[in-house]
């Protein structure tokens, strides 16, 4: 296949970026999207040009690193996958593909397609954990019986890989789905209830400080999330937040 590409190039965080046109040939349908970019980069390097910087690590949909807005959608046209799991068979010969970094004020571009998602780390650090004494007297988590339904919902919330597709898809660049998944995975478990009120208040406060937008319940985040994180989590976080605020 011959593919025409329009890719965002930006020298560094302080530079002004622009879309640059490229053409790449000899692309097979079984190649992954990132392999297609690898081939383009090898060509650019052989021509003495600066390769296109993009984030990637596991290349199997686990790490959540590949943050690419492909043809106007996070992780591309297919659902429930990350950009690294996208294959070129989803495109056809002669297609033009637009590739941009995830856009949000809280996700500044570092270079080309690489963004700084440390805002998510800071939200996690604000309360996305349980305080456990690990001095040797730690109780085995499995010693506490947990209802199957709650355990399943908690597990589903915990599958969030923090890729940022929810923010990228949301017209408001809201991080409510991410934050709510991290709140929910603990709020549903007895171990997480102990610090539940402080957790939700602190994580939402940090989310607001980072400059993410407000959720308007369009549901775009749920559709684009590669792990299928549900809007139920946002409703749960809102309940947790309101309850914690009222109790003071």
């Amino acid at each position, binding site marked *: 296949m011959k593919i025409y590409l329009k890719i965002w190039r930006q020298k560094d965080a302080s530079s002004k970026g622009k879309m640059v046109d490229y053409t790449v040939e000899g692309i097979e349908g079984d190649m992954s999207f990132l392999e297609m970019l690898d081939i383009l980069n090898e060509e650019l390097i052989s021509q003495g040009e600066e390769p296109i910087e993009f984030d990637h690590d596991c290349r199997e949909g686990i790490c959540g690193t590949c943050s690419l807005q492909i043809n106007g959608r996070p992780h591309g046209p297919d659902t429930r996958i990350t950009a690294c799991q996208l294959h070129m068979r989803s495109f056809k010969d002669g297609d033009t593909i637009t590739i941009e970094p995830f*856009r949000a004020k809280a996700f500044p571009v570092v270079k080309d397609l690489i963004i700084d998602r440390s805002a998510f780390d800071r939200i996690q650090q604000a309360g996305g954990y349980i305080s456990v004494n690990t001095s040797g007297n730690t109780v085995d988590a499995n010693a506490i019986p947990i209802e199957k339904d709650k355990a399943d919902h908690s597990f589903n919330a915990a599958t969030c890989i923090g890729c940022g597709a929810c923010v990228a898809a949301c017209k408001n*660049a809201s991080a409510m789905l991410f934050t709510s998944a991290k709140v929910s995975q603990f709020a549903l478990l007895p171990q997480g209830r102990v610090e539940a009120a402080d957790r939700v208040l602190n994580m939402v406060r940090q989310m607001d400080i980072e400059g993410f937008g*407000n959720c308007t319940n369009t549901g775009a985040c749920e559709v684009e999330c590669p792990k299928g994180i549900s809007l139920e989590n946002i409703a749960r976080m*809102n309940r947790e937040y309101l309850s914690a605020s009222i109790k003071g």
Partner: protein
Amino acid sequence: MSKIIQSSIARKVVMALSGIFLVLFLALHFTINFTSVVSPDTFNELSHFMGYNFIVQFIMQPILIAGVVIHFVMGFVLEIQNNRARGVKYVQYKGSANAPWVSRNMIISGAVILAFLGLHFYDFWIHEMAYKYIEANPEDPTRYYAETVEKFAPFWRTLLYVLSFGLLSLHLWHGFASSFQTMGVNNKYTPSIVNFTKIYAVAIPLGFAFIAIYHHFNPIIH
């Protein structure tokens, strides 16, 4: 108030609560208006009661105006903040791939409804305030039906009202069920809430439009 502005969830809750309040008011407004089609005398009686009852005029009316102002002001505040949250816009953004138009453009339907409210206040509320409190006219429990029908004589006004009701329908289509999600309600009742929202969002604006069109084509013959 500053604390409310600082929390994104609190801002959303203010939008949701004021929105649910306005949805309830719409049902009351429609019920009274519909009597103008089936029983002009009942419409006159109800309008006179609403216009001169102390609780309605000096307690419920200020609460309603506050609800409208809070909903619109907070809506625009949220829109400004949301625009700022994405400083650099996408070259290509396929919003239609993951969310319906109505949910992504509440600010447009809301702005049209706000403009309509300006016309509606000019047509009825300002006229009513002037009649009672500026011109200090005597009470006339029989005037409301004729005044209402007369308003819908011009085609342009009837058309503007009907178009506005169309945008109101779109606004309700997303907004009503969305309010419950914001308030933390997402459970086995959610499909029923969504279905009720769709029925309400079509039935109420359609009913308002019917009343406007009915009076346009059924003028009072003097």
